[in-house]
């Protein structure tokens, strides 16, 4: 099973509902987004004048660049197939590709918030969420989960449910009878380029001119892994708490107490 999403540009009207419903569903800090929409054109394409949209989200790739760079200590984790109940145990860091449903997920407890995965994603689908900061980190990596907690209770992902255009279709790409698989047969493709071929499972379909415009948004290069940053993050883990305390102690009592003292001196 491989969950995937199709975005039909012939239907999309660029209303931004997907992005906002996602924000509401997961209370995403305003500076970040799991779901975004870029308005493209009107611009000339080889196939004529076009205006379309780039509704983007995590691609839950076949070869996810974010997973392998995670420096968190690996642990053995047992996965369960929701359908068959079959289990599989594998060694994973704090982010992995689920062997049964194909989604890429994050363990917020073990994530150290170093941001290496966010750097590694050519689509910019990840961010470090400061709301999830704990004693050992400044935040945790966060991104689209394909709404797995919703899907588990029988709901559609929030962006799919709200889409008035029915431009977003979610399902199992491995099931040839699924709508998503049918769209792939009809020519839905991922946002890839010569140098970025990691098997995105969010795919787009549309007329030639719109697709030409959309493809201008495909990342052209894989980001260079920032090893130094990863190592640094790893080294700093134990002192995180200490640093945070220092930061907090410095907060209060500086700004205004000083003015109070100065007021007194006047």
């Amino acid at each position, binding site marked *: 099973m491989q969950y995937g999403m199709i975005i039909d540009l*012939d239907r999309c009207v660029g209303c*931004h509902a997907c992005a*906002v419903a996602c924000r*509401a569903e997961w209370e995403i800090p305003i500076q970040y987004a799991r779901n975004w929409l870029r308005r493209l054109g009107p611009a000339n394409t080889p196939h004529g004048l076009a205006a379309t949209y780039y509704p983007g989200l995590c691609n839950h790739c076949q070869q996810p660049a974010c997973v392998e760079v995670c420096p968190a200590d690996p642990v053995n984790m047992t996965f369960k197939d929701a359908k068959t109940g079959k289990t599989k145990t594998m060694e994973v860091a704090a982010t992995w590709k689920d062997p049964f449903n194909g989604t890429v997920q994050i363990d917020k407890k073990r994530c150290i918030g170093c941001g290496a995965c966010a750097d590694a994603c050519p689509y910019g689908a990840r961010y470090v969420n400061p709301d999830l900061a704990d004693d050992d980190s400044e935040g945790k990596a966060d991104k689209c989960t394909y709404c797995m907690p919703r899907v588990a209770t029988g709901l559609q992902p929030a962006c799919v449910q*709200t889409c*008035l*255009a*029915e431009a977003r279709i979610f399902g199992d790409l491995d099931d040839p009878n699924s709508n998503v698989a049918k769209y792939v047969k009809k020519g839905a493709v991922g946002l890839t380029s010569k140098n970025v071929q990691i098997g995105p499972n969010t795919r787009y379909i549309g007329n030639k001119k719109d697709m030409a415009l959309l493809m201008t948004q495909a990342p052209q290069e894989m980001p260079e892994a920032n090893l130094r940053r990863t190592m640094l993050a790893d080294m700093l883990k134990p002192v995180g708490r200490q640093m945070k305390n220092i930061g907090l102690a410095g907060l209060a009592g500086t700004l205004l107490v000083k003015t109070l003292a100065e007021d007194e001196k006047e």
Partner: protein
Amino acid sequence: MAMNLTRRNLLKTASLAAASVPLSKVVAKAETGIAKVPLIPPGSFKKTKTVTGGVCEMCFWRCQLVGKVRDNRLIKLEGNPKSIDNGLNLCARGNSGIKLVYDPDRLKYPMKNIGKRGAPKWKKISWEEALDTCAAKLQATIDKYGPKGIGVWYHGASAHYPTAYFEYLGVPNMYEPAFYQCRGQTAMAMMQTLGFVPNEDVDMANSKAMLLVGCHLGENIHLSHVKNFLKGLENGSKLVVVDPRFSASAAKAHIWVKIKPGTDTAFLLGLMNYMLGKGCYNKSFVDKHCLGLNKLKTHVAEWSIEKTAKECDIPGKQIVEVAELLCEHAPHVAVHPGRHAAWYGNDFQRVRANACLTALLGAIDCPGGIVQIKRMSTGHVHWPKVEHEEDPEDMALAEMEEKYPFRPPGTPPELMRETMVTGKPYPIKSMVIWGTNSIKTMPNQEETMKALANMDFIMVTDVSPTDITMWADILLPEACYLERYDHIEKGTQWNQSDKPQQFVAARMPLVEPMFERKDSVWMINELARRMGHEKDIPVKNQEEFVDHMLKEADLSIAKLRKLDGIYIQEGESPYLKKGDEPEFGTDSGKIELYSEAMDDEDFPPLPTYTRTEEPPKGYARMIYGRSPVHTFNRTANNAWLSREVPENPLWLNDESAKKMGIKDGDRVSLENQAGKRSAGSTVVKVTPGIRKDCVFIAHGFGTFNPAMTVGYNKGIDDNSLNTKINREGETGISGMRINFVRIIKNGKTINIPG
């Protein structure tokens, strides 16, 4: 010195011994907001409750909602699963409603302005004091000038009960922007021609061709309307979009007619001339149902393909192509009636042309055409009819001046504004402004400010501190659409070819209002009590108000609650059955291609094109439209929506931009023909998707009230540049697309080559 001590150490020093500072005595006097309660096990609040009964008002399409509420905190809004209109879907604005509810800039308490109008100083006052003041001031105006001394500007569902009260008081002049800056002509010209107001009941889903003239569905998101449009495309309907700009609709069109702004009526006349000349119009329909065909034929004869092409600056063959396409698919052609029509000040005639074209195609009451959708009916709440010394109908300004015979309901805003300034024919000295930001909606803001300065008293009710609230003497905070009862939404399943169903949904609160926000029924009843009208109060509270309206449909709030907010019953197809004849509510009972009534009032009885003024050299026409995530200026302060679309890029033709040395993403502001400059700035979108003789910005940006902290000064306020208006004689509605701009970049003015 004490500054070096920590608080704990400080407490140990003798100086703060409890006895020496009488803290406990002072704090014991005041009641606190916190009290000890049993410990609730952590986790129980994590589950949300689904509250049904919401009706959206982020725009005026009024989708049906449910709220996900946890601990009395609204977490998320979703489409009501029972809805046969929007279904589970919501647009970006609908999803963002919670940010309106919880906007900290919202009005919270009644306030009194103890500063100046326009530069207020607010004192929080009690409801008692606020209502006493409003009642006394309004009564003083009535005593001195009669009820005609009061004027009302209003908008939205919450204003229904208040306007009913002011009607009862005998107030003759009320103005609603929904008519006078938006849909007025569409409604009135359709009425005059077809004898009914189709609104936007056009069956795009089942059409074989669609014609949108200056209508950009997709940027204008009315949810089930867009579903309807997309269904049409899915079903293979051929889309024609007539627009100077490659809009969201044009991007999906089969034919984009890149028309010169202001020439739409000529285009429609050209289409009709071609059809009448070729005889490819719907003869049987026209013969049976239309009056004045021959007169129309003669009238449009001058609009040859060549002349039309030249006037509209489009290829002649495109006109032929469109005309042939529409005729080929008649009557299953969705000629969209349009919505906002106040463009050039000659718009009544354009809508008439649109209606005549629809009639020539016979595209009425059939699949794909304009349809008369059969909705359930509900009741109204009225105050008792009372005799007034002066009949309010006679005292209405438009009536007294014998102007604007085809005006929509209410008084044309500029007419009221002039009276407020001049005191002629009688003084208007008190204003009640309910839920409308008239500074923004009416063109020529300086005049509005002058009129307001002249008032004895101004009372404003709103949800947020919009620009107009700065002019209030008393400012009243209203519960928003998710916190109150008011509107009854009635409709059908969104696709008319599906099994016919009808629904009724009443707006019911999803959460309690915070602070001291109140609903309009409470406010008006309290006001009425103070003005001595207690015995005539028709409903006790908002629940009774809604129940009263529901009663006619044999429904109640209690019943609707049990039905998860929506009542659904079997409906009736709007398509004519075989053998049935359509009915038209005109004087003649037929579609009036030629209008006797218009002739009687000395207006052109056949749809007539008048040229609009050309941009002066160095300027381009400023055209405006919608952003899909904003409802005019109302949503400018919504943090989520502002994040999605923070400002309104200026669309500028790529070839012009090149000559001007302007690049995509440059930051610019605008100056209009009168030298008026925009307060804000925006980025340029350089694109081949717009003509050279115009630029485009979305409406609703550039908020100038700094209290709106999110939206303040983001983008350009198009309306601030609409210093020139063209008021049409038929309706008194002002066209606004007759203003021209050039660009200011880095302080330097740059002409736009034509």
